[in-house]
C-alpha cells in the first residue's frame, strides 16, 4: 500500500495546520465572548493534533498518534473545568464578556 503523503505531501498538511492555528489565534484576539475564545483554543489544539497525525504517518511511527490521544484527554478535562468556571462567572456577573473580567485590576 502506498503512502498517502506521496500524493498530498507533508508540506500541504503543514500549511493547513499553520493556517488553522493562526485562525485560532485570530479568534482569541478578535472575539470577547468567552465561549468563542474557548472554541478558538479548541481549534488551535486540533491544528496541532492534525500535524501530529500527519508526521506520525510521515515517519511511519505510532508515537505521534499516542500523543494525540493524551492531548485529547487533556483537552476534554480542560473544557469541562473551563466551562464550569464560565458557568459560575455567568452566575455571578451575568456576562461572559472577557473585557468585563477585570476585578483583579489594581
Amino acid at each position, binding site marked *: 500500500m502506498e503512502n498517502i503523503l506521496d500524493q498530498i505531501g507533508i508540506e500541504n498538511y503543514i500549511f493547513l495546520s499553520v493556517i488553522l492555528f493562526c485562525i485560532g*489565534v485570530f479568534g482569541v484576539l478578535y472575539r470577547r465572548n468567552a465561549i468563542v475564545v474557548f472554541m478558538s483554543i479548541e481549534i488551535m489544539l486540533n491544528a496541532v493534533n492534525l500535524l501530529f497525525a500527519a508526521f506520525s504517518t510521515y515517519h511511519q511511527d505510532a508515537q505521534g498518534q499516542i500523543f494525540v490521544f493524551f492531548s*485529547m484527554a487533556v483537552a476534554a478535562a480542560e473544557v469541562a473545568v473551563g466551562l464550569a468556571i464560565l458557568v459560575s462567572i455567568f452566575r455571578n456577573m451575568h456576562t461572559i464578556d472577557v473585557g468585563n473580567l477585570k476585578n483583579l485590576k489594581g
Partner: protein
Amino acid sequence: MIHIPDIANATPIQILFSVLSLVTLSTAFLAIYSKKPMHNAIYLVICFTSISGHYLLLNAQFLAFVNLIVYVGAIMILMLFTIMLMNLNNENEVHKPRITRLGAIVLFCLMCLVLISIFMNSKPIADGSYDVTGEDYQSIKILGKILLNEYMVPFEFASVLLLVAMIGAVLLSKKEKLEK
C-alpha cells in the same frame, strides 16, 4: 520548496484533500466570525468532523473515531449545553474598538507569514520520497500495545486527570450554599 499542485491532473485523493481543507478552514473561520453563539458551535462541529475526515485520509481510523467521539460527541455537546444554559442570544456583545480588530487581523497575517516562511525556508523536510516500510503501525492492535506498554504511566495519569476534572467541574458548577 512549495510545489504548486497540478489542478488538471489531480488525483481523487488530492481533490478530496483540497475539499476537506477548504471546509476545515472556512468553517473554522465562520465559527469565530459568526455572531450567534449557536451558529459558532454548529460551524465548529462541521470543522471537527472534517478534521476527522483528514484523519481517515491519513489512514488513522482509530484516531478519527476518537476525534469524532471526544470532540464532536462530548466537547461540543458540553459547549452547546453551556450556550443554552446561559441564554446568550440577546446579543449583548459590545462593539469592540476598531484598533482591536485591526490588531487582530494584522497579527493573523503576520503570524501566517512568519510561520509559513519558517517552514518553507527550514531544511527541506520533504524531498519527494516517502518511505513505506510496509509494517503495520497504526491499527488499533498496535496502538493499544504501545499505549499499555510504553505509555502505561501517562495513561493512568490521564485517567486520574479526567477524574479530577470531573470532580472539579461538579464542585465549580454546584450552587454555593448561603453562609450561615
